[in-house]
């Protein structure tokens, strides 16, 4: 049962990268990313999300962010404050790519900067209620570079 899963200690697992096939043809690849935080967050807290694979930046228009049974564009994420990235299920980033990825190791740089929506550094409670214009929330840089293996083409 999903409720009984031990949660992932890291964002991308060994089986996190695979090719994406439609009608028997590879039309892209899928990167599964767990939220590397201690609690779930609204998708609108994603301030920056970008991908570089094998040294080449991926055009964000070619990325579909799949979560909770839904499929979103990266540009939509900032408005999705009623959609949550919870801890036990990874987001699936589908990257459209005519060649997909070869079997073997690939270097993935995942840029993820999160706005932590309940911490405002430098403000105390005493100033916070008076200062509704200033919205400087804590930013958490969750980016990283890792080698991930595509197990089969």
């Amino acid at each position, binding site marked *: *049962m*999903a*409720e*009984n*899963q*031990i*949660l992932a*200690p890291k964002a991308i697992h060994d089986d996190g990268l695979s090719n994406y096939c439609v009608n028997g043809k590879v039309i892209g690849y899928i990167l599964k990313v767990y939220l590397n935080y*201690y*609690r*779930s967050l*609204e998708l*609108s*807290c994603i*301030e920056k999300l970008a991908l570089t694979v094998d040294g080449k930046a991926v055009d964000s228009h070619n990325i579909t962010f799949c979560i909770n049974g839904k499929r979103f564009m990266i540009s939509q994420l*900032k*408005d999705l*404050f009623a959609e*949550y990235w*919870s*801890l*036990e299920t990874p987001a699936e980033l589908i990257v459209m790519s005519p060649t997909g990825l070869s079997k073997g190791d690939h270097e993935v740089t995942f840029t993820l900067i999160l*706005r*932590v*929506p*309940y*911490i*405002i*550094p*430098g403000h*105390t*409670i*005493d100033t*916070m*209620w008076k200062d*509704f214009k200033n*919205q400087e*929330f*804590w930013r958490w840089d969750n980016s990283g570079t890792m080698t991930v293996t595509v197990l089969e083409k």
Partner: protein
Amino acid sequence: MVNKIKLGVRVFSFRNTKTLEDAIKTIVKIGADAFDVTASMTIKGYPWPSEQMIEYVTGLCSQYKVKLISYDGNVDLGMRCDRRLTEDEMFGYALNDIYYAHRFGAEVHRIQWLLPPSVLARLAPYAEAYDVKAGVEIHSPLIPSSPAVKAYVRMFEKAKSNYIGLIPDFGSLADRPIKFFVDDAMRTGTKTEIMDCMIDGINNKLPESRIEKQIRKMGATEQDVAVLHHPMFHQWEAESDLEGLKDILPYCIHFHGKFFGFDEDGNDINIPVGKILPIIRDFGYDGYIASEYEGNKFTSADPVDQIVKQRALYQKILESCD
């Protein structure tokens, strides 16, 4: 004074190293019968968990004969990219959380410190309708005597409701910095004289901007400045606010027994529990204090061992005569 305080455990202590069922099994094994959940961490589907999830958790409580004391929510003031939530929106989210606290069988709902007193006052009749006590957590850098906490107390005096209150986290009563944090900073480059200057400054309640100027004059690095401003650093007062604690006791509906670890003599490393617990006991508080281990950021000590140790320390203090 007869001790009526009961001791629970916050599942938050284990972070995500245990499933909820394993956390409950562990809690039972160490002799506790009550727990808190931080819903955004532990309850899949938060803020709108499924019926299946509700059945699962209430089923675990029956199976293992444990009580859920607090269902904790979040006030995600900055969830939108364009503006903060309004008071109405904070009210709406908290009301939703109180509904689910009721569905999960919780006695208490923890609200984060971002929700203003006026909104907590509005929640009172709804909390009563759902038979869940809603409390705002007093978490560092707040202390019981902070103006913000006094604002809640003024509201409580007018609202006269048993269904809204405060949840002090013991971290708000720390009287020194977290030793592990200080050691880590110094191990990674912060010089003794800079650290001493920062600690002195905070003990003397200097504004951070002034302390920053002082340490920059002393040649502080950007890492040193980051240490100064880090949320885990300036979380103490030179003297623990025990008088403030006494003043707010009538409004306390739950407590978080926050701790980071113990020194060689078995004392809490930064929270004077020997003084805090008798105050709460002697007031006649008969609710729970829920252990919350937060040393996992700094050491690889086993959270379970640490909680067992803490419970023994708390029992010893509570059963001793002053």
